[in-house]
């Protein structure tokens, strides 16, 4: 046990530090124990690869007190749990980033995401750990957000030695053991460990800080951006049977010539009519409304809608005038006070011909029609101001009724949370 000689890796010290880390962060125990330490003289401190190996410099262990080593353990395992290598790769691909400078930037951004709430409460801040404040950045953001906020420059010069390994930034290092080396975890095993940790945190959310609770909620179901969701909802409503391109018996098929006496359907194109009801009760900002409106029109164009088939209807307690979209820039989004979207629905449905899809952009503080309108309804729900409305992110293990969301839109509408 105590066969430690100077210059070799002091495993006892390293494991004592891990034990301290596990005691300070019991919900990370599975992940910490799943890490396999590997002695390495090429790493400046400690680093991880994507296969859950932890490379450790013997001299770093020698010169660092146990309590600081514990912090580094937690830091390194956080890179892996938060999938920083996968997210770095995706970010690099989406933004066309290449080169080790960019990867260093990803490592710094990933460190910022971890370090702003990793220490304290039984763990000390390891010397030299990057904090967002040191770079003049706000705390509590995600790696991707930090990446958009800083460039390498004089204030990151002191960080150029930083190297948390490919587990942090996705770039393979030559000193790493690679996918076929010993003691690596397969992709499925990595998922299983991350899942166990997330499950533990979700099971007893009180023990973990907010950052970890958010991670655990979203680890296997990252929330999609609202644009994508709204797009999917409008698209599917606008291309449902009866709308858009479909078969109709209204006109004989071109194949009918070959089958005299038989009525075959033919393919007809009927672009969807979309009516957008906008809640102008004042609690939603114009900028938000504008971007949501743009989104809806872009989508209806993509599904083959024509500009003249999209109408916009501002509505508070009483419905305003129906505006065709061609004048969308000049639509007065006036109003304020109470909202009653029922008048908006009534007005939109009175139009002739009737819309195929009604899209409602609202903060939800309104009475809803009692009966299902005779067309598809998509609700874009803005977060309500001044009230803490939890986004209904449900993980698959929860009951639908576990969380109470007041004033929710009726079940016949497809609801997308915006912002």
């Amino acid at each position, binding site marked *: 046990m105590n066969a430690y000689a100077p210059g070799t890796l002091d495993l006892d010290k390293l494991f004592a530090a891990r034990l301290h880390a596990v005691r300070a962060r019991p919900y990370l125990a599975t992940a910490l124990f799943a890490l*396999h330490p590997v002695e390495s003289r090429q790493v400046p401190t400690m680093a991880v690869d994507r296969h859950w190996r932890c490379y450790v410099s013997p001299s770093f262990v020698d010169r660092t007190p146990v*309590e600081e080593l514990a912090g580094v353990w937690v830091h390194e395992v956080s890179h892996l749990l938060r999938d920083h290598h996968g997210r770095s790769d995706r970010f690099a691909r989406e933004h066309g980033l290449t080169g080790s400078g960019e990867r260093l930037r990803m490592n710094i951004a990933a460190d910022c995401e971890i370090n702003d709430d990793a220490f304290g409460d039984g763990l*000390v801040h390891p010397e030299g750990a990057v904090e967002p404040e040191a770079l003049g950045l706000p705390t509590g953001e995600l790696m991707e957000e930090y990446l958009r906020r800083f460039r390498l420059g004089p204030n990151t010069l002191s960080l150029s030695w930083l190297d948390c390994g490919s587990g942090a930034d996705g770039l393979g290092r030559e000193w790493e053991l690679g996918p076929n080396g010993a003691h690596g975890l*397969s992709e*499925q095993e990595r998922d299983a460990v991350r899942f166990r940790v997330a499950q533990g945190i979700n099971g007893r959310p009180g023990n973990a800080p907010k950052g970890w609770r958010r991670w655990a909620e979203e680890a296997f179901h990252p929330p999609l951006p609202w644009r994508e969701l709204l797009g999917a909802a409008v698209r599917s409503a606008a291309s449902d049977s009866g709308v858009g391109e479909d078969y109709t018996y209204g006109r004989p098929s071109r*194949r009918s010539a070959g089958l005299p006496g038989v009525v075959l359907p033919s393919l007809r194109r009927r672009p969807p009519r979309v009516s957008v009801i906008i809640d102008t009760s004042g609690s939603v900002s114009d900028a938000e409304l504008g971007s949501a409106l743009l989104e809806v029109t872009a989508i209806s164009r993509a599904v083959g809608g024509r500009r003249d088939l999209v109408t916009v209807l501002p509505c508070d307690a009483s419905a305003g005038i129906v505006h065709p979209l061609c004048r969308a820039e000049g639509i007065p989004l006036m109003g304020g006070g109470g909202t009653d979207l029922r008048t908006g629905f009534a007005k939109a449905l009175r139009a002739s011909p009737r819309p195929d899809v009604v899209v409602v952009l609202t903060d939800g503080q309104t009475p809803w029609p009692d009966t299902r309108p005779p067309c598809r309804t998509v609700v874009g729900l803005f977060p309500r101001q001044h009230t803490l409305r939890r986004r209904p992110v*449900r993980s698959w293990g929860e009951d639908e009724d576990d969380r109470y969301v007041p004033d929710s839109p009726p079940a016949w509408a497809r609801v997308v949370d915006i912002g």
Partner: protein
Amino acid sequence: MSIGMRCAAPETPATASPTPQLDIAADLLTLLRDTTTEPRPDTQLEALTLAVAADLPVLLWGEPGIGKTAALTQLATALDLPLTTVIASVHEPSDFSGLPVIGDDPATHGVPMAPPDWAVRLVRAGRGLLFLDELSTAPPAVQAALLRLVLERRIGALQLPPGVRIVAAANPRSSAADGWELSPPLANRFVHLQWTHDHEVVVRGLGGTWPRATLPLLAPERLSEAVDFARRAVCGLLAARPKLVHQLPGNETRRGGAWPSPRSWDMTLSLIAFATAAGSSREVLSLLVRGAVGDGPGLELLASLDRMDLPDPETLLADPASAVLPQRGDLRQAVLDGVVAAVRGRPEKSRWDAAWALLVRALETGAPDLVVVPATTLAALRQENWDVPEAIEQLAGVVSLSRRADRAADRVAGRIGAGSAGGR
């Protein structure tokens, strides 16, 4: 351009019968097509093969142009089935529900619905792989007709024979212009496989070397063992987690994907049995299970499989000297916790001693910090008349490790205390 020149200028004396341009082009094409293959494990193709072998409807989700058709060609070769590809978007609904054919007296004989030629050929062959490509770009009525084909295996009046296997492909919802979406009941009938391309494979393939997947072979002697394992895995999980049996997808993002129900658990059972009989890796099983019941329940099943693989605490206690503990720290810790829990459940001196022997063994073969918590708990289980076993002396290192961590914790507490005192 040069071909035109030659035709336009016949008076130019041709140098000894030049090779026609198209022949040279053919040579160039031959060179371009001269590629080799190399064996390479391909988990997604292996998963697809097993799901198709298990005769479950598979839906491949993937962007156009990433090699779904190439994969299906490989699959057809592996299963020795002729491949029929039907591009859904260029057909009409009647192509799948049958084309009406007028006989002599429709009022008495009815109008028979004639199937298309490819369906007739498939039925005549009695076996084949039917690939319904581009489901998502077909109009809704065609999609509806196709789903009947996939789920009921009928085309007009024709019933597809059992030897025909069906795979469908669709573009992901976010990229599909016209919003293909499965309703939850339909989605529940499919095994959803996400089809992605491997950057390395594509680059290497364009360089002339394509992968050749070695596909799974079912081992006849493992069949009953596989069924037994699959039943234990699914029933074990569902007995402990009744909530997982049936859960309709709750929100917008997960509509149209895999979700757990008795039907999809039944599919999962088949998939586990097939993957086990083929000796497939956990990666492959993970794709299949998550494709059948969704990510959450799928991961939970896989996690419980990991625990099923762990050695039984009673076996370890019966013979601690020859115990083999898992290498991975988190699994080893789970085993040691299980052993201590077993002693707590039935506390006897001999079992307590055996557990100490196991902890010593764990210490000799792996990281010492894993042993601290089980050792502390085990020590607390001591009853008054039990003598401390000699083995405990060998755990002295664990005690010193634990104390070292204690001292670190004290220093942290002291430092934070001093810090906050200084702050005031």
